[in-house]
């Protein structure tokens, strides 16, 4: 297992470097530069390019960037917050996105699992139908619809929660965005749990377990749910990353100082270092979570681990 993790970590690092290099190449191909402003003269643009080293060839900038990155220096912002180091810029924003995204994942997973289990156990009843309805709504309605509906009803109409995100009341003002973002997770998890549980419940080993006279909760949670979890985790992993890295529209609606909207602004204004850093964080989180999921598989289902280690023959 240790060797496997070590190997995976090395591959992950190499992947990250490759992603970073491709990013640099892509930015090079993007039209315009951070300094295409009407009021800037040619000589000033040259000065600015020189100041930030943008007149250097792309491979040289890449190497410089990686060198600085190792020391924790991600460069400065060119347009969004002029001359501010990216670390300062993200220091306050990243935790907000991770927090709200994390809450959404937790809430969505717990409710989704509950609904999915309920639907599977109460197959073809009103609970099942309701779960299907929730799933269809959650998957088909974009999160900003929930965001708008919630901010209008619970924010504007009854004043239970603030309309806009407030740093000084972070918990209270994160409730509505969390629910809006969680809906998709609820739907996805409920759908998969239902399908997988139905399959597991009908399997021979469940019949065996039941005939052994195991208590029902143990039967469902340990024998049933555990086996149904693998596909759910597979769909959940990318959801976790996309939620934690912030959602553009939900951030826009609640004026949340997160990183989702930052990335879009950065791309529109050619703020290279912000784009590279955010894309890097995104990739690192994605790779990290995928690695975590793979390890988790091994814990949940030893067959996978053994197969990977090459000691297991079917």
């Amino acid at each position, binding site marked *: 297992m240790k060797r496997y993790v070590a190997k995976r970590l090395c591959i992950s690092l190499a992947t990250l470097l490759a992603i970073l290099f491709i990013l640099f190449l892509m930015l090079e191909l993007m*039209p*315009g*530069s951070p300094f*295409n*402003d*009407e*009021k*800037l*003269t040619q*000589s*000033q643009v040259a*000065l*600015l390019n020189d*100041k930030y080293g943008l007149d250097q060839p792309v491979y040289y900038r890449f190497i410089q960037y990686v060198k600085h990155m190792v020391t924790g220096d991600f460069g400065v*912002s060119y347009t*969004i*917050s*002029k*001359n*501010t180091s990216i670390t*300062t*810029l993200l220091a*306050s*924003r990243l935790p907000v996105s991770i927090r709200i995204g994390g809450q959404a994942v*937790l*809430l969505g997973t*717990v*409710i989704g699992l*509950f609904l999915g*289990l*309920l639907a599977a*156990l*109460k197959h073809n009843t009103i609970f099942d139908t309701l779960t299907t309805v929730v799933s269809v709504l959650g998957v088909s309605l974009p999160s900003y619809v929930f965001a*708008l509906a919630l*901010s*209008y009803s619970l*924010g*504007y109409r009854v004043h239970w929660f603030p*309309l*806009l*995100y*407030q*740093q*000084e*009341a*972070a*918990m*209270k003002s994160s409730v509505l965005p969390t629910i809006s973002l969680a809906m998709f997770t609820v739907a996805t998890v409920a759908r998969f749990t239902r399908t997988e549980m139905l399959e597991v419940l009908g399997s021979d080993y469940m019949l065996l377990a039941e005939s052994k006279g195991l208590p*029902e*909760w143990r039967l*469902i*949670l340990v024998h049933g749910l555990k086996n149904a979890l693998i596909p759910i985790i597979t769909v959940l992993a990318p959801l976790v990353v996309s939620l934690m890295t912030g959602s553009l529209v939900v951030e*826009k*609606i*609640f*004026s*949340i*100082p997160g990183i989702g909207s930052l990335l879009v602004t950065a791309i*529109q204004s*050619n703020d290279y270092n912000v784009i590279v850093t955010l894309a890097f964080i995104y990739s690192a989180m994605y790779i990290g979570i995928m690695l975590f999921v793979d390890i988790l598989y091994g814990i949940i289902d030893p067959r996978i681990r053994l197969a990977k280690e090459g000691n297991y023959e079917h």
Partner: protein
Amino acid sequence: MKKSLKKLAAISIAGIMAWSLTACGNSKTVSQETQASTAKAETKEGSKENGKVLNVHIDVEVASMDPQIATDGTSFEVIADTTDGLYELGADGNPVPALAESVEKSGDGMTLTYHLRDAKWSNGTPVTAKDFVYAWKRAVDPKTASEYAFIVGIAGIKNADAVAAGEKSLDDLGVTAVDDKTLKVELDVPVPYFESLMAFPTFYPVNQEFFEKAGDQYATTPDTLLSNGPYKITSYEPAATTITLEKNKDYWDADKVKLDGMKYQVIKDSQQAILAYQNGDLDVVTLSGEQVEQFQADPEFKNIMAGYLWYMSPNTKVAGLENLNLRKALSLSFDKEAVCNNILKDGSIPAYFAVPTLLATGPDGKDYRETAGSNYFKTDKAEALKYWEAAKKELGVDTLTYTMIVEDTESAINVAQFLQSEIQTTLPGITITLEQMPKKNRVERMQAGEFEIGLTRWGPDYADPMTYLNMWTTGNPNNYGFWSNKDYDSIIESSKKGELALDPVKRWKALADAEKIVCDDAVIFPVYQKGNAVMQKAGVEGIDFHSIAINRYFKNTVKN
């Protein structure tokens, strides 16, 4: 199975509870948060009693609080809330002395000696002439790479352009501190709008000692920001979505400041912004074009004239567009009233000029437009058709196709689509195709001359027609169409640095003549001067709206 379900439900509920506990962190944070919110509720109550904290909507983050680095209207506005320069703009847009207490002008108008009033930075150190010298040198220092370095040259300060280009040393810049309270400014040429420029943030003072101590972190937190203006920052971080300010009690003119503080809230979604306004979270909000119709009957609705001129720029290097008759035909072919009243609906006005209205006041005390008239480019579709017929003969063509490049904002696209259909209907045989792109790409394409027609805009930097007219001189990077006229160039040159510069009355007349050349030659096809639609709560008064540099000024604002 039933029992197990109940157990399952119990476990799930326990799980949710456990989650909500972990999500709150620990009990300490919970109580802190409650305290914070009660504290907030109290201040809200308090503010209702005094009605003194103004909540203002902005739709974009502040890009920089550093006066020599900032370039955008939002940053300028917040910087001006916290910092005074030699002058400020009064309610009518004319400069009034701020930190300058008095001035002595030399006979030739080339040397200005300013005596500063007693004013303090928010850390208690006095504001001195050295702070101005340091800031201005910083603005032109090639190392700072300030985008607004050029404006020091526009102000006519001696050697500014040469210093900015790195040809002369910083010490050659025509500004010296005679003593702590006396600032001497030497000019290359007398500049009639010098005082108005002194209200521009690039010319705001910076305390060298404080700046150097803050280093890289300067102007990124309340601790690394200094104020000498009506308000001081109490919460700010780079690209913050909320910024709070409180009244600066040590401000030299503190008696005039009636607000206890201000709170800026960044809201990018215009629908949420108006919801927050209706909810009472905001006192001032900017409306988007499509919201105007809904609210224009509301007593809290207000139209504000902005400085931006939107126009089409034809590239005279492109075959056909060098033809004067074709350009004239295009310039008269579309209905500008309809653009303003049916498409934009935000108080924008049709542009029958190349230099916007409410920009500059002349030596006669009148607005420039009053003197120069607003009779250019009046929509006349029959006349346009005549010009098009003439152009067809001269060019020997029956049909022409041009691509117009447009930035990808909703209002720009809407306007462009309307212009496209107007031109095509009025001038049969002309086809206009549209190409959308981000603004930065449009600017890049236009500066490189890789376009046929571009829909573009220009915002004024100072209160003088020159902020527009300078653009169409030969070789100017913003003369996108590559139009060139020697007479025009010589008027502009003389008004900037020559004979005309010394005679304000003659100069004013000459600038109007120069504008006429641009209009007669259809160098650009002006469309509209931008208006802004805002909602302002009843009881809020004294917000000064300006069309140049600082768009809103809150020093004299009251909230009842």
